[in-house]
């Protein structure tokens, strides 16, 4: 418990909070530059404001979910380190798995404050940083070359000629398809969990994630219907967050049904 007090000490908050503050400044710098550039390029300011509103409402609920990840990890790693990891670079799905593997390799069995040592903590912290840095490494060394290779229809001199036929216009379709693939993988995993999650064709797995996803999809359908009927663009800004909130509220009800 003495170690947990050290992991929650002001020094730890200072180290982790300092990095988070630095990242916040980076976000503000990029946002201000983009907004100014948008204005210069003639992008409608009301569109940019809608993007900011929509992204704000969109991000609130997942952020609360991420906060719960911080709470979940704070029992074994203290609060400041999970706070840093989940504010910057990390993802809820990854952190626990990596921390668990590092705990085993550090010889403390599993992720638990009861067996935690200062060396094990430093090892876990370093592995968490090391495992999930590849996107950053690639974007540093290859980001410019890679993104410049992508075709911009507004800039034919940048490669539009060779894309005149065949792949032209497929970029957006591919992005939508990629998203269909992403969503399908997760929804299929929820169905797979029900059918074979607790033994092949046992139908004993939790149906809660699928029920939540279906509820959210139904709520989204209602938002789309309202938008199509009324033509109110503002509905778009709140449709995803609203659907999620409806489904999450339903999850509480479903949870009670399961008991």
């Amino acid at each position, binding site marked *: 418990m003495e170690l947990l007090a050290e992991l929650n000490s002001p020094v*730890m908050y200072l180290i982790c909070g300092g990095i*988070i503050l*630095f990242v916040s400044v980076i*976000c*503000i710098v990029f946002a201000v530059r*983009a*907004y100014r550039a948008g204005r210069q*390029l003639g992008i409608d300011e009301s569109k*940019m404001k*809608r*993007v*900011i509103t*929509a992204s*704000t409402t969109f*991000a609130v609920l*997942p*952020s609360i979910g991420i*906060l*719960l990840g911080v709470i979940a990890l704070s029992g074994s790693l203290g*609060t400041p380190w999970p706070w840093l990891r989940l504010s910057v*670079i990390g993802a809820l799905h990854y952190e626990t798995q990596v921390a668990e*593997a*590092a705990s085993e*390799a*550090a010889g403390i069995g599993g992720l638990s404050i009861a067996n935690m040592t*200062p060396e*094990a903590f*430093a*090892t876990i912290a370093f*592995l968490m*940083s090391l495992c*999930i*840095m590849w*996107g*950053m*490494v*690639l*974007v540093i060394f290859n*980001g410019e070359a890679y*993104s410049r290779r992508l075709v911009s*229809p*507004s800039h034919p001199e940048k490669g539009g000629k060779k894309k005149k036929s065949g792949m032209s216009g*497929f970029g957006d379709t591919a992005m939508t*398809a990629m*998203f*269909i*693939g992403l*969503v*399908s993988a*997760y929804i299929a*995993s929820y*169905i797979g969990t029900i059918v*074979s999650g607790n033994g*092949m064709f046992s139908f004993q797995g939790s149906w809660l994630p699928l029920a939540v*996803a279906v509820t*959210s*999809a139904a709520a989204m*359908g209602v938002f789309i219907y309202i938008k199509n009927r009324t033509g109110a663009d503002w509905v778009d800004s709140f449709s995803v967050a609203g659907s999620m909130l409806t489904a999450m509220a339903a*999850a*509480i009800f479903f949870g009670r049904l399961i008991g």
Partner: protein
Amino acid sequence: MENRTAREYYENYLKTTHRLGRILTASVLILLLAAPYVIGIYLKAMPNIPAVLKAFLGVGIVYLVSGIVEYLIYVPMLGAGGSYLAFITGNLINMKIPCAINARDIVGVKSGTPENEIIATLSIATSSLVTIIVLALGVLLMIPLQPVLQSPALQPAFENVVPALFGAMACKYYRADRKAALIVLTVMTLLFVFVPSLIGSTSMMVIPSGALAIGLSYLSFRKKQKTSEGGNEA
């Protein structure tokens, strides 16, 4: 602004975005790798490198592969500024990517255009700041809020944020290509049903699922293109 001037301005914007992005991403990377050592000095214990290497061979390789795939797939969606920010702030699949695509759809911009670059950067920066603020407030209020947030009654809601997100997105995107969606969902469901061990690696299964969806969309895209070419010739 005239077309030529706008183009020059945008090229210059991209150039400085990349320069700034590289410097700031490298700075954050150094800070993140140095932090365990700084904490180690405070705790009087350094990371055990053999243990780090052992664990890296176990789980790190998976993240190395998924990091490369994420980079290849998401950079085209996010543009230059959005990519630097998204890889610095993380939470790509569960927040940044859906958020950027949602923003892009709301204002109706196309991939690879200057508009997409600006909108994606604004969207990622805003959502990152929201997360940072929510987490900072949450950490600040953690003690009084903990009983409410951790109350058993609310747990089903917060444990199902991701299904709630993907349900909403499914409704939105399945409408764009119902046939591809149905095929991909069926194939992936059969995979998970017959190989249940894959359920624990869903994030990796996004790769074949995405590849299948892109393949199907390409076939349908080519078919439509041929039909329209045939129509034009006639």
